[in-house]
């Protein structure tokens, strides 16, 4: 299925407001999906026999910078039967307040591999995935402060009495 056909398929199934934008300039076009709908969209793309995106190649959390204060998640889907790939994105404004993290629905029910990828995004960027069964830090220690891949990150000075530099 081409990019345009996938767009039509999704709007027919979920209504016209499910796709909030698209990026077609680059070599790999991407669809920007309404954040609340991402899990259902992924499930549909995985199970629909016209698309069969059965392989989640990568899931990346992104901090789009301190001016915009936008956080996002990028999903790289691959279809093994059709040898096709697709990029999905969700994004959301967040004021970087410490009390509440930016949150998106989890897709770990759709692809089990998303479990660890989402833990990594939570660990390094402080993105929460609602409904995730096991949202703990994965690469950093459990008591690490802050989220290193955020653009405004400042490393803590000491970690258990050890100087961090």
């Amino acid at each position, binding site marked *: 299925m081409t990019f345009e056909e996938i767009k039509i398929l999704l709007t027919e199934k979920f209504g016209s407001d499910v796709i909030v934008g698209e990026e077609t300039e680059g070599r790999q076009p991407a669809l920007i999906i309404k954040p609340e709908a991402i899990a259902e969209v992924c499930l549909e793309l995985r199970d629909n026999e016209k698309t069969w995106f059965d392989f989640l*190649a*990568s899931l990346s959390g992104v901090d789009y910078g301190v001016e915009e204060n936008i956080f996002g998640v990028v999903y*790289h889907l691959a279809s*093994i039967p059709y040898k096709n790939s697709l*990029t999905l994105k969700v994004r959301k404004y967040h004021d970087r307040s410490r009390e509440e993290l930016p949150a998106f629905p989890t897709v770990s029910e759709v692809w*089990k*591999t998303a479990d660890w990828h989402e833990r990594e995004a939570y660990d390094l960027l402080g993105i929460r995935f609602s409904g995730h069964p*096991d949202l703990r830090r994965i*690469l950093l220690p459990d008591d690490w402060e802050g989220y290193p*891949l955020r653009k405004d990150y400042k490393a803590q000075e000491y970690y258990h009495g050890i100087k961090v530099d």
Partner: protein
Amino acid sequence: MESTRYQKLISGVEPTEMVLNMGPQHPSTHGVLRLELITDGEIVKEVIPHVGYLHRCFEKHAENLTYQQTIPFVDRLDYLASMNSSHAWVMGVERMLGIDGDIPKRIEYIRVLVSELNRIGSHLIALGTYGIDIGAFTPFLWCFRDREHIMNMLEWASGSRMLYNYIWVGGLFYDLPVGFEERCKEFIDYFKPKMGELNELLTGNEIFISRTANVGVLPLSTAINYGCSGPMLRGSGLKWDLRRVDEYSAYPELEFDIPVGKGEMGSVGDCWDRFKVRIDEIEQSVHIISQCLERLQTDLKRTQEFDPRARLPKKIIPKAQDFYMRAENPKGELGFYFITDGKSEIPKRVKARGPSFCNLSVISEISRGILIADLIAIIGSVDIVLGELDR
């Protein structure tokens, strides 16, 4: 806050069960991996992997350095297959710059040649250490003996033994040294019968088969759902190799087969199948290397004028875009996701998708209700490299 699956598992341990830490300092975990086991006697009830002991902030480094400066860091991801990793990185940057079509054929063939040599080296470590995990010591020594020749050759070409920094954006560090092709040919002739010996010693060994066949069976649907790739996925019976799917670099012109697990000794997707896929892949890599050498000694011969640095871009500033590059590493699909802003020499965001990371995540799924000794066999068959898992 709601309790996580981990907390539930640990608080649900029965008085008759024991929580056992395997690793991080344990040779059979192939590095600093810690597995928390909930055991009932010899039976493993649950495996909870804890990773991150070797985390070196690769992505943070990559977001503060230029593309060329990051290559040595890329080498340190999967340190057993540095050539393959930097090949993937470099191809990604070249495609973003739009110069991937202008790379001279000789350079592409040299890249494939060194990558495939490195693939053999990586697989030899996987096979040799797997023998040790099972209790066979000799194959390990044999594999390291043969790998030493590869290391020496790559050292000759690049100047270092493991972390090469040889493949550059738009070209190569140096051309192959004079006489490399002949020495490589000699190595291939030496190496071919050695694989037969290894097969006689280990692959068909009855003890080895009884330890690995029907152990850690990974069904294909589970493998796909958990994002497994490389020999893990092919061991479960799927012909999926990005060298063929994406047809990158010089691979479309080269002939090779994609070995898959057939369940010869047990069921499809067991530890023996994954082992056998690696053995067969070495054979295919040897075949690819012979074809590369053939071309590099005939129509792509070295000439006085050939300069592998002729096409290095002076400044690497890709247009503003998102790009995901994937390539087939010895362990599976290595992916790099770049976000660039079109103004700076430094990427805005880089994400590395390591194959070991995804391949390991399936371990708790296929290790429920097995013996502890079988868990060792399963970890070894996944073939993880912690450098790339923890990044």
